[in-house]
Structure formats: structure tokens, C-alpha cells
């Protein structure tokens, strides 16, 4: 097991190198000189020159890359042009909102997706399954921003049950009741992601149901619900865990839109605002942080699935 973990960690190195090259290339692919683009049309020549030096743009490209990587390795992701603050701090300010939103959404996704997926698979081919599959597909077809806008209009404005937008910090004020600001966003964000998980759980369960040991369990006379939960679901769960990283990526994507609709001060809205502000170091930093997070999540998922099912290691 120890050797396997070590191997997986070493295997992540080429991925990290490719990721760093891609993220580094991002700023350099933006047409025009990054310094003058960031400062806008009104900038003085000296200002541009100063920023060029600050960003290291006057040096050869490979040197820029190495300098950038060594800075990143020390936790220095550059300086936000708009805030004049370290990028990591700017991202960190959005982290609370995004983390709470992701947590709430994942809870909803698991609470809806797993039971519904089990039901769809156990009633495979019946009306129950067809209705559930149709509904899942319908929910996956709804644009998150549209769903969010209507939830704001009906629940927050017309019925006045929940706040419409924003999210006052819980950690700073200690007010746990502020979490109610995240109920509608989490519902919005969980709709397409639950749909995905329902389909994944259903497909995973159906794969396992074809196994011989499931037939054996049924032949032994074990009650159907026990077969489903103890034999099928347990084995299908490994596949579900393996796709959690995948779900997470989808979640971040939709979070950009959801946070914008609900005006939440999270990392997703920061992306959109930074694009409008031409604050490219922040965008670059966010992409980097998310890729790193994804690589770590995948590593953890890989190690957890190997732990759950030692056969995976052999493949």
C-alpha cells in the first residue's frame, strides 16, 4: 500500500509540470503586452515599464517560467493588479463563501443523488425508473442561472422566505444564521450535479447487478432490499467515489454562474469580475489553485478506492 501511494505521488509530477506550463502560458497567450493590457489605454509609458519589470516580462521566457514556478512553490501567486494585494489573499477572501457553498451543495447532491440512483437502478426498466431518468435529464437541461433567477423571484422576492443575494461572512460575525443566504444558491447548484450523480449511481448499480455474485445472493434467497444495499450498492459505491472528483469539477464550473446570480462574494464570481477588470494574475491564480485542488482530490480518490477495493491496484 505504501509503495502504491508513493507511486501515485510520483505519477502526479508530470501532471503538475504540464499544469504549470498551461497556467503559465495563459498570461502569455493574451494578445498584446500583458502589462499595457492590464493597465488599460490611459497608462503612462513609465507605468507600463514598471509593471513589465515587476512581472518579469523583460526577461527570457524560460527564465520567467522558472521564476514563476519557484514563486508559486513558495505560495506567491503574484499581485492582483486591481486590489494591489497578493493574489493568494484575494482568492482566500472568496474561499469561505465558495467552501460553504460547495459543502452544502455536496450534501444535497449526495442526499438526493445516491438514494434516487439506487431507486432508479432497483426499479430498472419500470415506470419508476423511466420517470426518474426523464426528470434527471430535464434537470440537467436547465441553465443554472435561469433556475437561480426564478428561485430568487419566487422564494426570496414573492414569498419573502429567504434572502435574495449576498453572503455576510459567518466566520467573521459568528452568525450561523447567515448560512441561510446559501440555501437557494446550494439548491440551484445541486440541481444539475444531482442529476449527474443519479445517472452515475444508476449506471454503476446496473453494472454490478450483472455480476454473478448478485445472482448467487438472490439464489440464496436473500431479500431484494438486502441484495441491493449490501451487495450491489456497496460495490457500486467504489465507482461512485471514483467519480466524485469529476462531480467536483462540474460543481466549480456551475459555481461561477451561481455565485454571479446570487452576488455571492466567492471565488466563482471573482473569476468573472477579474475578467471584466482585466486582473489577469487573479484569473491565473484561480485556475492554478483549482487544478492543484483537482489533482489532490484525484490522488485522494485513487488512494481511497484502492483502499476500498485492492483489485484496483492491479489494473
Amino acid at each position, binding site marked *: 500500500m505504501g509503495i502504491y501511494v508513493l507511486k501515485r505521488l510520483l505519477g502526479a509530477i508530470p501532471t503538475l509540470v504540464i499544469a504549470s506550463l498551461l497556467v503559465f502560458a495563459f498570461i502569455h497567450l493574451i494578445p498584446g503586452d500583458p502589462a499595457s493590457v492590464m493597465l488599460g489605454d490611459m497608462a503612462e509609458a513609465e507605468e507600463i515599464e514598471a509593471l513589465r519589470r515587476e512581472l518579469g516580462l523583460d526577461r527570457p521566457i524560460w527564465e520567467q517560467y522558472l521564476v514563476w514556478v519557484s514563486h508559486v512553490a513558495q505560495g506567491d501567486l503574484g499581485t492582483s493588479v486591481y486590489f494591489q494585494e497578493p493574489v493568494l489573499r484575494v482568492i482566500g477572501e472568496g474561499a469561505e463563501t465558495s467552501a460553504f457553498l460547495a459543502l452544502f451543495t455536496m450534501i444535497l447532491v449526495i442526499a438526493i443523488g445516491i438514494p434516487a440512483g439506487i431507486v432508479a437502478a432497483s426499479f430498472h426498466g419500470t415506470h419508476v425508473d423511466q420517470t426518474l431518468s426523464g426528470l434527471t435529464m430535464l434537470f440537467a437541461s436547465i441553465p443554472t442561472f*435561469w433556475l437561480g433567477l426564478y428561485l430568487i423571484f419566487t422564494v426570496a422576492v414573492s414569498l419573502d422566505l429567504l434572502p435574495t443575494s449576498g453572503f455576510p461572512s459567518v466566520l467573521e460575525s459568528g452568525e450561523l444564521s447567515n448560512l441561510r443566504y446559501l440555501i437557494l444558491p446550494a439548491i440551484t447548484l445541486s440541481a444539475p450535479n444531482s442529476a449527474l450523480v443519479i445517472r452515475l449511481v444508476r449506471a454503476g448499480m446496473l453494472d454490478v447487478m450483472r455480476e454473478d455474485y448478485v445472482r448467487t445472493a438472490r439464489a440464496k434467497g436473500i431479500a431484494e432490499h438486502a441484495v441491493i444495499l449490501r451487495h450491489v450498492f456497496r460495490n457500486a459505491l467504489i465507482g461512485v467515489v471514483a467519480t466524485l472528483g469529476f462531480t467536483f469539477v462540474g460543481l466549480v464550473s*456551475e459555481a461561477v454562474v451561481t455565485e*454571479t446570480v446570487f452576488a455571492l462574494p466567492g471565488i466563482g464570481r471573482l473569476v*468573472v469580475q477579474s475578467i471584466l477588470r482585466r486582473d489577469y494574475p487573479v*484569473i491565473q491564480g484561480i485556475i492554478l489553485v*483549482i487544478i492543484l485542488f483537482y489533482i489532490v482530490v484525484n490522488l485522494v480518490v485513487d488512494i481511497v478506492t484502492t483502499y476500498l477495493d485492492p483489485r484496483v491496484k492491479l489494473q
Partner: protein
Amino acid sequence: MSAVLEFLAPFATRKVAAFGLAFLVVVLVAALLAPWIVPYDPQQIDAIARLSPPNAAHWFGTDHAGRDLFSRVIYGARMALLTGAGVVVIALVFGVLLGTLSAYFPTLGMVLMRVVDVLMGIPALLLALALVVILGKGLFNSMIAVGAIYITTTARITYGLTRKITAETYIEAVTSLGAGHWRIIRRHVLPNLVSPLMVQATFIFAFAQLSAASLDFLGLGLPPDVPSWGNMIAETRRYITRAPGLLMFPGAAIILTVFSLNLVGDVLRDRLDPRFKDDLAKW
């Protein structure tokens, strides 16, 4: 003719999917015949008839600038199909190229597939937004930005499929008969890729609608005056309390189009060779 009948046959028993297919035909007709269908110019501003509810003169009502919503939704079908088609072409051309090359040249493949894996780790919309930053806004750039998301998945799928196909005994047989790489790719690999990629293209077409609409909604897609469904929702969102129906029509157009494409894609997938099903993206 028999090919058409063969395509339509499974829809006879699946009524919801048949509805999906019918709706897509409606969207296609609306897109093709838009100038002859619409009662008003979609850009024509009528300051007096602002935010009017659906009525006999304006079937879907009018927006905040007094423009006829029905005419705009019909024209929106054009943008939707254009974007979808552009994204599918970009994703398939580059995805298939990358996928087959990677499967054929293992060393190159190892590097390329690693790059693809990293790109797939970037959330779809974030990747598209990064490309919009690099390329700028506009119809063609939106297509490339959204297309790039699906180049990676298509490359992955093509890679898996090609390796599976080239491992078959009949490929060994034609190789021993002296067939070259090019002949094998053209005569044996590509024809076998057609049906699984057709299914994939349907789903790409569907989800490209949502990605492109999201870009429009964030103000980073098509120029604001272009009547795309995403733009209509973005423009009128502030008036939702005064005219709640305003967002309903473009929203329903997006939802029904994506839903219909998914339904049709599902039917196509069910007819697919079971050996290839596992290679398709998880949806």
C-alpha cells in the same frame, strides 16, 4: 429512405423521445425560416409597448425595450443551432485528430493524453472563460471557447475507441495482408468511430447550449444586441419582478432544446454497439 426509417424506428416506442425529435424539427424550421415566420423585426424598438404581457399582437409579450419577444426567441433558434453546430465541428475535428494520433503513436499519445487529462481537470466553464480572455468575445470565439471543452472529451473517447478497434483481430489480419497505417485509419478505424461519435456529438450539441448560454449570461459571449436565448435572459433579468414571464420563453427554449437533444442522444446510444458504450463520456 431505409436509413431514415431505421433512424426513426426506435422513436415509435419511445414517446418522450419522439416528442424530443419533433421539437428539434420545430427548432430547425424556426431557425431556417426565421425571417418569414417572425411578425416583427427582432431589433425593432417600440418605446410605448415596453414589458407588455403576452397578447394578440405580441404572442410572448415584449421586452424592456419594447422588442417583440416571439420574434427574438425565433431568431434565437438560429444562434443556438449555429453555436451548437460550430462547437460540434470544432470538437470533432480536433478531438478525433488528437485521439487517433495519440492512439497510433504511443509516445506522442502519452504526452498528449496527459495534457488532455490536465485540461479536463479545469472546470468546463473556467476553461471556456480563460479562452474568452485570450481570444476576445464574439460568435466565433464563443464557439472555439466552448468547443475546446469538448475537444478534450472527444479526444479521450476517440483515443479509447481507436485503441480498442486497432486491437481487434481483423486489424491484425489486414496488417498482415500489407495494409498501411493510412489505409487502416481510413477504411477500418474511422468508419467504426462514426456511430459512437454521432452519439457523442448529440450530447456535445446539447451541453454546448448550456455553456454558450452561460457565457452570454455572464456578458462574455455574444455581443449584447444579438438575440441569443442566453442574452435575452441576461438583458431582462432585472425586470423579472415586473414581468416574470419575460425569462420564461427564452428559458423554456433552452431547456426544451437541451432536453430534446439529450432524449435523442439517449435513443441513439441505446442502439450503439455495446462494446463501445463504456467509452462514451459519463452522461
